[in-house]
């Protein structure tokens, strides 16, 4: 089993396969925030959420993202972390940013206070906080936290994880139910250990963004805009990443297997930073019976050197025997040409019918 395979399957194991989720790890800027919001909107629209739920999820996201944007300086290698998951009847929102250890007590106090208030009291508290408007030099005054508690209608669950003597990660999780009319009598206690595990895994691989959900042209465009604005790198490398990402994601859109009735195909995408460039991974379901054919195709392009690849590309470009809305016959050749590295891949049989296919493309500067 290759290293890549282990990593991908490790991540998949942590993520709930039944759920839709995405996590972003890195410095948040306005354009990335916009991209994340657009991605969420696309997914909420697809899920046919009532407007009220959409608006609430949206507000919680905006407040959470702004909160991270204001507080995201930390030691080297440590980055803010943000995620949305949809599983069963619930949306879960997770955010994490780095705070100085001396702020832990104050923050815990603030959150405990918010969590102890009933709905009406929260409203009063919010108004009061608005009036007092005790803005710290970074803005805020805890208004964002109160707003998040109000919109979710649930407690803000939190935890801290020490990074070093100066800093800790502050984790905040909350949830919102799809169907607001059915009341939860008991608070759901959210698990933090899985989030810690995922965050650690993503940190060790320097994963920048991970998307586990339904792939369609819309989610592809939203993911592209997030990645495009995130990469502070030279234009030629950025363009290569863009190129390869489009080919990989369109592969899922066009060839992935839809397991349930959905507006697209389920799959996984993540991108990680490596020494001299980036590593892109995707995973999707295919028919088990198609494994051999796909394997042959990849092995075929992996065997070719640069000159042969170019010849093969020319041949295919001017050959219309393979030309339909699903296939141009150029995708894999393009991946090899643009990355200038062998394509790593793996298959994992899920059942007689379905298998999970992962592919990894490395892009060097």
């Amino acid at each position: 089993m290759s290293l890549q395979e282990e990593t991908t399957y490790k991540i998949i194991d942590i993520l709930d396969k039944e759920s839709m989720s995405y996590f972003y790890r890195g410095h948040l800027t306005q354009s990335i925030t916009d991209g994340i919001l657009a991605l969420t909107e696309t997914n909420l629209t697809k899920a046919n959420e009532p407007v009220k739920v959409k608006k609430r999820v949206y507000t919680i996201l905006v407040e959470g993202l702004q909160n991270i944007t204001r507080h995201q300086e930390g030691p080297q290698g440590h980055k803010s972390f943000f995620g949305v998951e949809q599983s069963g009847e619930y949306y879960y929102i997770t955010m994490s940013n780095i705070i100085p250890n001396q702020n832990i007590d104050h923050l815990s106090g603030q959150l405990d206070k918010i969590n102890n208030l009933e709905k009406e009291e929260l409203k009063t508290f919010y108004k009061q906080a608005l009036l007092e408007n005790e803005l710290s030099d970074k803005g805020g005054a805890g208004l964002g936290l109160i707003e998040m508690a109000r919109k979710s209608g649930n407690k803000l669950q939190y935890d801290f994880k020490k990074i070093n003597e100066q800093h800790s990660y502050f984790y905040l999780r909350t949830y919102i139910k799809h169907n607001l009319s059915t009341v939860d009598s008991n608070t759901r206690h959210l698990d933090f250990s899985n989030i810690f595990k995922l965050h650690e895994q993503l940190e060790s691989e320097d994963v920048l963004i991970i998307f586990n959900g339904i792939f369609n042209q819309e989610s592809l465009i939203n993911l592209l805009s997030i990645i495009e604005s995130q990469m502070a790198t030279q234009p030629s490398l950025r363009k290569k990443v863009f190129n390869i990402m489009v080919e990989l994601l369109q592969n899922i859109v066009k060839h992935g297997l839809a397991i349930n009735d959905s507006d697209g195909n389920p799959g996984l995408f993540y991108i990680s930073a490596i020494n001299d460039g980036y590593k892109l991974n995707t995973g999707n379901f295919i028919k088990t019976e198609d494994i051999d054919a796909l394997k042959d195709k990849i092995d075929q392009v992996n065997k070719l050197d640069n000159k042969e690849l170019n010849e093969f590309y020319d041949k295919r470009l001017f050959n219309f025997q393979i030309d339909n809305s699903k296939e141009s016959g150029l995708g894999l050749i393009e991946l090899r040409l643009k990355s200038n590295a062998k394509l790593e891949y793996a298959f994992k049989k899920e059942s007689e019918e379905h298998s999970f296919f992962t592919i990894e493309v490395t892009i060097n500067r």
Partner: protein
Amino acid sequence: MMIPVLYIEATKDTPKILFDAENNQFEISEKSLPEDAIGFFQPVFDWLNQYIDNPKEESTFVFYLDYYSTSTAKQLTKIFYLIEKLSEKSKVKVVWKYQDADIDMYHAGLRYQKMLKIDFDIQKV
């Protein structure tokens, strides 16, 4: 009779297309990564097929793409074949523009230039 102008505005995943016979403007620009490239470019094929029947003396086709997917690449080949067909009847020129640092786009232009029998100019912008 002049063929009506074909104008398609650019979106996040489809290019801008302007084919205006009267003003001798034929241009495809920006990004192209539609899910169904064949469907998207069909109006262009139809337009060109009509234009071939009754072309102007001279036509200059400008391609200034920032990015395109492999499924688009194949449809560009079809457009070039139609332009090649047009060149049998009238004077035709293709200008392939690319941004200074965009070596990949330059090479993409070379690829088409090499395979086609038309006046194919590659220009750095």
